[in-house]
Structures are given as C-alpha cells and as structure tokens.
C-alpha cells in the first residue's frame, strides 16, 4: 500500500539487499565502552577509533572532565530554556568569552549545535533579494540554512576561484551578497583556496562566511583555521564552528567583528526557539577551548600522524581523496558501495573503526572510507592502523 513512506522504498530496498548478504550494518554501530579518545569497545572487541573528528583528543582531558562535573554540581543537569529567556547562565557567557579570546574577535554567539549555527546565521542574514554564493560541496547544514531563508542561492564548482568570481560578477548591481565557504571539506579532507576566494569575494563587495568546523584547534598558528593559515582571517566576516570536533563536546558558534552582530540574538530563530546547552557542556567547552590555545605540540604531532597515514595508505595502493595530506581527514575512495561496506566490515573485524560515507553526503556519487586522525593517536597506533588496512584491503580485493 502506498503512503507517505513510499518515497523511501528505493533506499529501504538497497539497504535490505546490502544487509541480506550478511554484512554488519555500517550505520548501526554501538560503542559499548569508550576507553579513551582513540580506543573503544565495539561488539566486545577493542577497537581503534579512526573516524570520530576528535582531532585534538580533548574528550578525556582531566581538566575538561573536572569542569563538567563541577558545573553539574553547581548548576544542575540542564537549563530548560532558550538563551533569550531563562537559558543563559554564567557558563554560556564564559564560553563566549573563551571563543572571543581564541579567535581574537569582538563577538561570539553560541548555538546548541554546529548544524544550528549554520542554519541560523545563514538563513537570518541573507534575506529575500540577497544572494548567497556557495561551494557545490558545502555541508548539509549550509544547504539547509539556505533552504530555511529566502535568498537567491547560487552554487559554484568545488574550490574553483574563477567559477566563484564569474558568478559574483553576474549578480545584479546593488544586491547584497554572502559567500559561504568551508576551510576543510569534510568528505575528501581537502582545503579551500581561501586566500584567493576571500580576495575575489571582497573585490566584488560580498561578505564572507567560513565554516571552520574541521580545522579549529588544528590548522593555523593559533588553531583558528584555514583562514588563519592562509593569512586572510581579518577579511572574513563570520566564522562558524562547532564544539563537537576538536573541542570534544557538542554545540556550535559564530564569531565576528561586525559592529551590529549582537542583534542576531533577537532575530535568529534557530538561536531563539530552542533550549540552550546544558551547563556541564558549556563548562567543558570553555575549558577545552582555552587549553586548545596552547596546543602547538599536539598540532605538530597530529600533522605527523596525518602525513604518515597518507603516505602509508598511498604506498599500500589505496586511492585517496587528496594528493597531499591537507588536514586530519584522509578519505579512501572505494570503487562502489558493496566493496566499501565489505572493506568497512573487514576493518572493524581487524579492530579499526572508520566512517563509511556514501551519496548523497559524498561528492560525485563516491563511496568513501573516511579516516579522521587524533592528536592522541600514537606512532605505534598509526603503524597498527596501516597493518589493518593492508590485511582488510587484501581480504576484500581492494588492493593486491
């Protein structure tokens, strides 16, 4: 019988066929115990985590944990309210201060998730008759922010400076423009040419918003992201980020030097019409952000890990998403979903967790095994990981 769920039938069928082969469901993994940022128990087996975005390994930091416990005792388990009503505690202001110090910017606004930060800021600042120009490979939260607003949406080819410039020049004179970019694109782990793109955007009178979710804490001298690393952070109008990656908890934010920025707190619906983060979460985030300011050694070690894994996987004969390691994400390109799922399961059996990524999340219909490294992965663990890729790759016929 046909009903509202009939539109999902092709996906249900594809999923049933895949699981009928006896494969473990890649989207239903349960971690029974988490020992550290790099190790968990899955299906009773000790598993190295290589797909968590826990780039700086802050989730078990003793200072971070202590701050969270203290906040639970002092402020309770939740705020039960919106930031603009009863949901702003001292901790919410403290984490916004930490962000202002971390980015050396005038304003910071904390949302309940990174998804909501993009959804809220993009949909609110670009209205009817305004134009949003964005990279085609933008994250779902950016597209959803566009869909929630009323602006004209113009995508351009991934990382193509000329395509961006052409589209900016075609926008009718007098219209306000917002260019939306990401520092690191999470699917292939490649970095945007922000230096050129920000220059082109400014030359054409556009404001620039950059999502630095996958670079915060790691890329740039102070861990402020790709815009810092490429020397253009002062020309960026808005930086969007998340607490659910390097910071090691959950939440999202926007930082900016715009003089009228604070008005967003009253007009941004995904900020107003939802409950604020629990006190323990903002306390852990503030502590973690302040520690990330002085983490140059960890950043250096994470780069070493990324280079070593990239070189090792290339040597084994895997096809990777970027020619050079550009971030802490290394994407292994699989020939198709069946092979990708088989390889994912073989790795899990070896004791390694990576992300299986598939369309529509991936560009060009690719199936990817996405690896994200942590600053706390040891040199020995990276060696172990390469051994597991070699064994699983040969067992599934992905490499010879």
């Amino acid at each position, binding site marked *: 019988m046909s009903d509202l769920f009939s539109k999902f039938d092709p996906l249900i069928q594809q999923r049933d066929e895949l699981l009928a082969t006896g494969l473990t469901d890649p989207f239903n993994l349960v971690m029974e115990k988490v020992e550290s940022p790099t190790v968990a128990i899955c299906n009773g087996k000790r598993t190295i985590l290589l797909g968590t975005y826990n780039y700086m390994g802050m989730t078990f930091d003793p200072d971070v944990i202590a701050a969270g416990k203290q906040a639970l005792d002092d402020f309770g388990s939740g705020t039960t309210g919106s930031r603009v009503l009863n949901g702003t505690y001292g901790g919410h202001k403290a984490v916004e201060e930490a962000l202002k110090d971390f980015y050396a910017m005038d304003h910071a606004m904390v949302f309940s998730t990174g998804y909501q930060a993009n959804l809220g800021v993009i949909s609110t600042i670009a209205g009817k008759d305004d*134009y949003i120009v964005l990279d*085609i490979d933008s994250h779902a939260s950016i597209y959803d922010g*566009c869909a929630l607003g009323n602006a*004209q*949406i*113009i*995508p*351009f*080819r991934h990382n193509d400076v000329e*395509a961006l410039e*052409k*589209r900016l020049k*075609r*926008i009718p004179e007098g219209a306000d423009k917002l260019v939306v970019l990401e520092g690191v694109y999470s699917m292939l782990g490649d970095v945007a040419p922000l230096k050129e793109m920000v220059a082109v955007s400014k030359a054409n009178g556009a404001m620039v918003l950059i999502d630095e979710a996958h670079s915060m804490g790691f890329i740039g001298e102070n861990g402020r992201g790709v815009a810092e690393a490429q020397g253009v952070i002062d020309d960026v109008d808005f930086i969007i980020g998340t607490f659910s990656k390097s910071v090691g908890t959950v939440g999202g934010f926007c930082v900016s030097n715009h003089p009228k920025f604070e008005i967003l707190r009253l007009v941004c619906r995904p900020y107003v019409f939802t409950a604020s983060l629990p006190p323990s979460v903002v306390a852990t985030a503030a502590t973690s952000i302040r520690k990330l300011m002085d983490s140059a050694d960890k950043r250096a070690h994470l780069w070493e890990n990324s280079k070593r894994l990239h070189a090792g996987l290339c040597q084994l004969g895997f096809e990777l998403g970027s020619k050079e390691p550009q971030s802490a994400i290394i994407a292994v390109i699989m020939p198709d979903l069946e092979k990708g799922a088989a390889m994912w399961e073989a790795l899990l059996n070896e004791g390694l967790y990576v992300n299986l990524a598939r*369309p*529509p999340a991936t*560009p*060009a*219909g690719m199936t990817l095994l996405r690896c994200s490294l942590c600053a706390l992965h040891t040199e020995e663990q990276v060696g172990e990981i390469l051994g597991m890729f070699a064994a699983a790759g040969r067992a599934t016929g992905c490499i010879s």
Partner: protein
Amino acid sequence: MPDRAQTLAKVIELIEPFNKKGVAVSESTRFAQDLEWDSLTVLDFVANVEDEFDVLISMNMQAEIETVGQLVDALQKLTS
C-alpha cells in the same frame, strides 16, 4: 531575443555528457524523471549552462524548471 531553436540545440548539447541512459532528448524531457538526474548532477549541469549563456540560474529558479523546454524558456528570458 536570441533564436529559440539555437538555445534549444545548445541546451541539448550540454545535456549529452550527463545523458548516461542515452535518452532521446526533446522539449518535454524531464530532468528528474526521464534523465534520472540526482541533485548533484543537476548542479554540475546548471554550472555549465550558466557559463555557456553567461547567466545565473539560482537554485530557487531551478525548483521551477522541470523540463528541457522550461529551461529554454527561462534562458530566453534571462538573455533577452
């Protein structure tokens, strides 16, 4: 206004690299149902059309365009 037949011929030419099913393309061909394009294919194709005709076709505009003929109509308007 540019010649409509010429615009149609150019659009059909731009469709071909994405016409994996080898569908015979006419004005009534639908992008989603007949060509079976997913959203990413649409974005790639639109980028090519924009550069060929030196216009902007926003995603908002795309939502109103279902067939090849409707795209040609939109391009006639945008380039006139």
